[in-house]
């Protein structure tokens, strides 16, 4: 059975940042926002009221079921089929308890629904099947983690400070759910919706410099607050972001990881994410491929998905659904990103949302260069384009080798 229950059936391994008892761990895993405690308290109140009713009712059912089981030829006693005081009691008592639940639940809900005025605003864009957070500096996350066989973005949030999410969808209805914060709100295609959280507890991550201090990345912390140094142990730490409104094929892989950072780390992380100028085009392209949701539909290994694979696509000539033909080059890629419906390749349907206004010019060039590099025949060219652009950035003083 150990193969079936690798850890244990109910208990999940401890998270780095939590400080909760086994009861909360069993039911909720972790607790990490200002209003999570109240939600849990209301849940526990309802739970114990329910347990009390359930135990009494089931005890009576089984006890009477055995005590009054049928004995052949024996007449049952006559017993009342109506008892006004009893019936009043069992109507009034649940009514009072339900009223308490309603009032307490409404109060707890208002705490979730009304955000503090000083909350830092993060713009959230949902689309099939990817989340994007745009921070107040304009920065977007470039960090990745692995969840359910997908590379998903990691979003950092500041500890002990309220953040407000202003959310919209590019296509269908999605829903943003943070189980550890007990927070959820639908994301609509035709209006903005908002939610807010204030992460509490301990930070889940810190930031560390590597590659001679040139680069910066998140480093998960263990329950004692120490950096986890073993790279193999680093995946899967932090909190979860799930999409909870069914949105099609990759709904279950529309995920993100949440890292809660101390204030100074958060600022460092944000500054670093905001500045992509030092990242060579082909490297940035690969990051964007995973972070902007391209990976959910386009493979890079030749496998067919919702959209065409990018492997060896550069330089090929394809027919469209309307019979036109075109060769994949810079213009082709640019048009596909900004006006996806203009040329839909034969055998596929027009599923892709437009990225007009969502990508900077350099980001489009980065993706183009990355796609170029996926065809072995053009790999050298892609490298040269990247190097040349890097060199120009640094004032033409020689090329910087990428990776």
């Amino acid at each position, binding site marked *: 059975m150990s193969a079936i229950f690798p850890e244990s059936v109910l208990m999940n391994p401890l998270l780095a940042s939590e400080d909760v008892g086994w009861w909360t761990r069993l039911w909720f*895993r972790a607790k990490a926002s200002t209003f999570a405690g109240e939600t849990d308290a*209301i849940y526990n109140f309802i739970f114990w009221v329910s347990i009390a009713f359930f135990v009494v009712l*089931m005890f009576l*059912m089984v006890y009477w079921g055995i005590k009054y089981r049928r004995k052949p030829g024996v007449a049952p006693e006559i017993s009342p089929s109506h008892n006004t005081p009893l019936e009043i009691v069992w109507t009034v008592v649940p009514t009072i308890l339900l009223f308490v639940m309603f009032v307490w639940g409404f109060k707890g809900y208002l705490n979730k629904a009304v955000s503090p005025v000083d909350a830092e605003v993060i713009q959230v864009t949902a689309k099939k099947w990817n989340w994007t957070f745009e921070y107040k500096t304009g920065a977007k996350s470039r960090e990745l983690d692995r969840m359910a066989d997908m590379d998903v973005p990691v979003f950092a949030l500041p500890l002990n400070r309220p953040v407000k999410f202003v959310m919209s969808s590019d296509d269908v209805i999605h829903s943003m759910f943070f189980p550890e914060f007990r927070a959820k709100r639908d994301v609509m*295609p035709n209006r903005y919706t908002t939610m807010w959280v204030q992460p509490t507890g301990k930070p889940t991550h810190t930031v560390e410099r590597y590659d001679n201090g040139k680069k910066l990345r998140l480093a998960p912390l263990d329950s004692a607050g120490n950096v986890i140094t073993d790279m193999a142990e680093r995946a899967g730490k932090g909190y979860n972001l799930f999409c909870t409104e069914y949105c099609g094929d990759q709904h279950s892989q529309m995920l993100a990881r949440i890292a809660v950072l101390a204030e100074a780390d958060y600022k460092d992380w944000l500054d670093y994410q905001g500045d992509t100028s030092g990242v060579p085009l082909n490297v940035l392209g690969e990051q964007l491929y995973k972070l902007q949701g391209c990976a959910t539909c386009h493979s890079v290994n030749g496998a067919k998905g919702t959209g065409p694979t990018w492997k060896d696509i550069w330089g090929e000539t394809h027919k469209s659904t309307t019979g036109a033909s075109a060769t994949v080059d810079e213009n082709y890629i640019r048009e596909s990103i900004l006006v996806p419906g203009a040329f839909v390749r034969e055998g596929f349907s027009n599923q892709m949302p437009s990225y007009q206004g969502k990508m900077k010019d350099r980001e489009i060039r980065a993706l183009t260069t990355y796609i170029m590099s996926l065809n072995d025949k053009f790999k050298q060219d892609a490298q040269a384009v990247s190097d040349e652009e890097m060199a120009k950035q640094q004032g033409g003083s020689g090329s910087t080798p990428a990776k």
Partner: protein
Amino acid sequence: MAAHAAHAHPHGSHGHHDEPYYASKGSLWKTVMSWVYTVDHKKIGVMYLVAVLLAFFLGGVFALLLRAELYEPTKTLADGTVTGQMFKGWTSAQGEVTSNNIYNRLFSLHGTVMVFLFIIPSIPAALGNILLPLMIGAKDVAFPKLNLMSWYTYLFGGAFALWALIGGGVETGWTFYTPYSSTTNWGNVTAMVLGAFILGFSSIFTGINFIVTVHKLRTPGMGWFDMPLFVWATYATAIIQVLATPVLGITLLMIVFERVFRTGIFDPALGGDPVLFQHFFWFYSHPAVYIMIVPAFGVVSELLAVHCRKRLFGYRAIAFSSLAIAAISFLVWGHHLFAAETPAANAIFSALTFLVAIPTAIKVFNWIATMYKASISWNTPMLYAMSFLFNFTIGGLTGPPLATLATDIHLTDTYFVVAHFHYVMMGGTVFAFVGGLHHWWPKITGRMYNEAWGRVGAVLVFIGFNMTFLVQFILGTQGMPRRYATYVEMFEGMHKFSTIGTWVLGFGFVIHLLVFVLSLVSGKKASANPWGGLTMEWEAASPPIEHNFHREPLMTHGPYDYDTAVPPHCNEKDYPLPTPKPGMAMAH
């Protein structure tokens, strides 16, 4: 029917008045035609019964497959297994099938088939058709031809659903949320939605028929409060069916318009509002939840009374709470939208939702109080009645965390909701339906089933069901979202446990199926009243004659007067009457 072939009454010499309703008409052709053109409520009910059982089987297979898919976090059925290849082949024009797509179609079809083809018609159209006229001492329903039309409408709608299924199915979920459902180009959403639209008419026809039947065709002397509680429940259900189903019809038609004519009611790209759809949809579908559960309340009331041999505690409270639930059910649809709507709307719908909990709780208290000082037989129907009370109490008590706003925000669209409504829909309605099927099996077929194996099946179904769904509450509170083809590794243990539960559950149902088939082939002949029931269907023969009763039956006792009346066709030796204590009120 096999049972009939085995012990057919001699034909011709006797008048057909004494023959069972399903008796052969001489030739095979004539017999088949006697079913095709029948206006007999029992035959229509039996045809419905066969159809809903087939739908239940189909939906059950989808359930087993989707749980199998969830056995591993990301590996899927599509990877290398024979089933996977089969499902990949089950494709449509939109190109290659991803493994997530297979799961998405499985859960959508499971929901659609179970809701529209199985649960909604299960108790009202199948058991209700057979029993309602018998219970009120009538010859048939008020509009027998409308009844037949309802059956053929169901078949027609079912054919649409089947067409949608074979052509690749749907992957929108049974809720068809816009703009996903109005824009997805996968599968046969239009055909499936039209199927559900047509099935709605079948439901409305049955509802109208039952309302008029209850009002006009009760046997002389049967007042409203002499009606069995199954009749009350079916009556309350019929009212919801007639009032709510048209809204679903209009809403589904609007999806078809949206897809075909691009009308722009729901799709924001065309200027519509997707949340409007959710309001329309749940304005029907929440009352529909009570179309599914209220008939089960009626069945369980009958099972408890007969197998506890006891007047039901609080008859009027149970009857009125059915009506109260039917009325309040129209005012609570907004609780499906707590994550989508604004605080003011949510506060109102949260409060109204709590109102439903009160009559529901009262019912459970009454049922359990009925067992006090009763004479309880632990047979299969009673095991199902007690399993119902166990499951439905859990299903009911997990309602308040979802009606409470602060907790619902966390729990909505997670496995907590999945577990909650399966405890009500399956643990409640399906358990009542299977219990009722055993209870009325002798009446419908004229044969007894094997009691010992019936109990084995009941215990396995109970264990399998609770293994499958109890753990899903914790999956939900820990944050596992519903409708996920893949999941993060931390949920693996509970998902595996749940999947193993479905195997036990499926095995239990296989035993029930064998018990029923064996009963038809070689079951003991049933007496007219094998359980000692007092309601009027037990006065008729088992199986009843075509016109139900030889003459209009008279009300000589109330439906639950176990203290004072010996059940029809029964001996007082087997059902001794209690001696009244001096001064004890015997008023009804």
